């Protein structure tokens, strides 16, 4: 009987702690819960297209974006992206010549990120 008491309490302790750990992991793995980060990437990384995506997991919702051609600004805009949301922007550009570095610069509050293609 005492053996059974040991087993039952072990099972209860284990299930309680393991469930708590699973819950903690679920929260840690949630890209948004308690996190503050955002990411910028090309929608089509392997070709010349400049469609880009801002994925927001931060508390900041306002983003300013610029497209630079060899460091010269050629387009800019503002975007409001809620936490947990994704925005794809498809710039319609006619580039005058090749051999240019096209940079997408995104600024949110004090944070700046850039991606580029050397076309």
């Amino acid at each position, binding site marked *: 009987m005492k*053996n059974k008491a040991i087993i039952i309490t*072990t099972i209860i*302790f284990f299930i309680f702690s393991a469930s708590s750990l699973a819950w903690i992991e679920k929260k840690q793995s949630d890209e948004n819960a308690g996190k503050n*980060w955002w990411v910028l990437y090309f929608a089509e990384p392997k070709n010349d297209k400049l469609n880009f995506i801002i994925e927001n997991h931060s508390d900041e919702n306002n983003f300013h974006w610029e497209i630079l051609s060899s460091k010269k600004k050629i387009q800019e805009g503002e975007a409001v992206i809620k936490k947990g949301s994704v925005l794809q922007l498809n710039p319609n550009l006619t580039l005058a010549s090749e051999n240019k570095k096209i940079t997408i610069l995104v600024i949110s509050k004090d944070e700046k990120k850039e991606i580029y293609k050397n076309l």
Partner: protein
Amino acid sequence: MLNFIFNQILFYISIAVMLFIPGYFLLLAIFGKSKILSALEKFTLSFGLSIIAIDIILILLDKFRLSINANSILFSLIAFIILCYAVFLLRKEKSAENSSDSDYSKKQTSLIILIIFFSILIRAFFLSHTIAPTGTDLGHHMYWTKKIIETGKIPAYEKIEIIQKDNVYSISQPSAIDDFIIGEHLVFASIGLISKNDVASAFPSITLFLINIMGMFSLFILAEKLFSSLSYGKNIAITVLFFVGALFALSGSQGNFISGGVIGNLLGNLLIPLIFYFFFRAISEKNSAFFSLGIFTSFGLAYTHHLSTFIFAFSLIFVLFFILLFKGKEFFLEIKKWLALIFSPRVLAIIFLGVIFFFFVRMPGYIENQAVKTIVGEPSRSTKAGLSLAQIFSTVGESRATLGIIGIILLLVFFKKNKYQSALILGWFFSIFIMSWKPTLLHIDIPSSRIGNYLIFPIILAGAFAINWIFEDRHYLNRNWKLSAFLILILYVSTGGFMSEAQSINPKKSNSNFIETFAISKYLKQKTTAEDIILKDHNYVSADSWMKVFLMRDYNLPFTRSFLFRYDSPTREQCTLWMISQPKSSEAKKCFTQTGTNFIIINPHYDSSQFSDSKEFWKIYSSDLIGTYYKPKK
């Protein structure tokens, strides 16, 4: 929330079905409803035997070309349970056997429950910082687990590599990997399949947590039996539980191995005490059923972890040596008794089935690949040349090692009282001690620190014996003096133990950096194909070993820039280093061309400048901790 609750219920049902029920029915088939095993012993043994039964069932499914999936596993399990139950019904009338004397007083039971509470609490607190799937080893293992889940087959343990031949770099054909053994992955695959949990979640660590807790019980029931002839035997077992549960909760191949995903060692620490338990009971009670279970579990260990199997084999040889030493001429009479056990029908049946399985169903990978040769010989690296005594003490924990050594000395001096018990603990201790201290004496070539971790279990047994021997067996000493000295000693051991445990708890480990690694992995899974060759950095990218679990292209993909010191080896390829550290160099350019590498993942805080001023790379992905570059074909 409802989804989470449902998921949890399914997970615990899967655990019960996969990790307790098969073993329980196996014990029922062998022992019926006799009282030869206490409830706690049945609980612990069911777990260990279930792991082996699941391994065998899944290997057989694969051998008969049946897909490994939730349905096939459940049907096979039901068949196994029916078979065991049928055997039980056939042998029902022979159930009268002696009862297992392991009931505790109320005070002892309360103490055990308190120790278990703290054992689980300390581990859970530690794991709360590391429960996210980030461990490097766990990532490696979960790749193979996911491979089984996705393909429904036992995988070929192979990987591709970047190789250099005649100054030309290329990607090799898949070649065999010796480090992985199927038993490390089948349990996780079966739980994943039944519970529908993703491997990139808490379930692998929680399963390891359970394996570790059950490993603690396996040492506990072994101690119960080893010291059952002593009046204070139960107190020794409780002390063992306290040491292995609470004092060694984190360091020494326990909590830190759970979060790191060191599956093989944890399974080894569960199965080795169980094997000793079976053999000890078989020999001391002349019971062939226990002997057959000892063979069965040893067989299971061989399919689970090569290092543990190797260490167990050495320990067994040393135990036999000590039995020979202690028994003298009687040893050969003992052998006669053992032979009677071995030549019993059930032991012969298990050996016969084991041989059939080994030769005609599946051999452990390390035997098939002749990997054993790689661990025999003179130490090939300084890390395999043995630990100093100070390092061994540090591995075990100073206070605990001191107590353990006292126990070892006591067992050596007073061995005559309990020859088998002393021989088992001494053989177990000295085999591992010599393997980790002077491996050249045994001609083995294995990282010494990995072996050193195995010292903890025999040290715990010896230490628990010592503390109880000193304070329980000395009736002529003053009671108050004994109590004071006992408390001081416990305080010394506990303080030393808990201080080293506290160092293992690092709240800083609790971060979410892995989220960004998982995000880029999902992105690359979508945007790249098998033609693309990806290289990532292991030095500064968090949880990078998990990237392959998302891509599922090859065990070695993405390729990795490993720890920088590893490139000091003259035989190591340098491409993975050059392509990240100096991508504009002529060597790196050659590597890019010849290997076809076109995606690079780095931590921008450490490795971005060498790419940003090069026209050959596009930066295609940018987050706080991940920068990804693409190298288009010209």
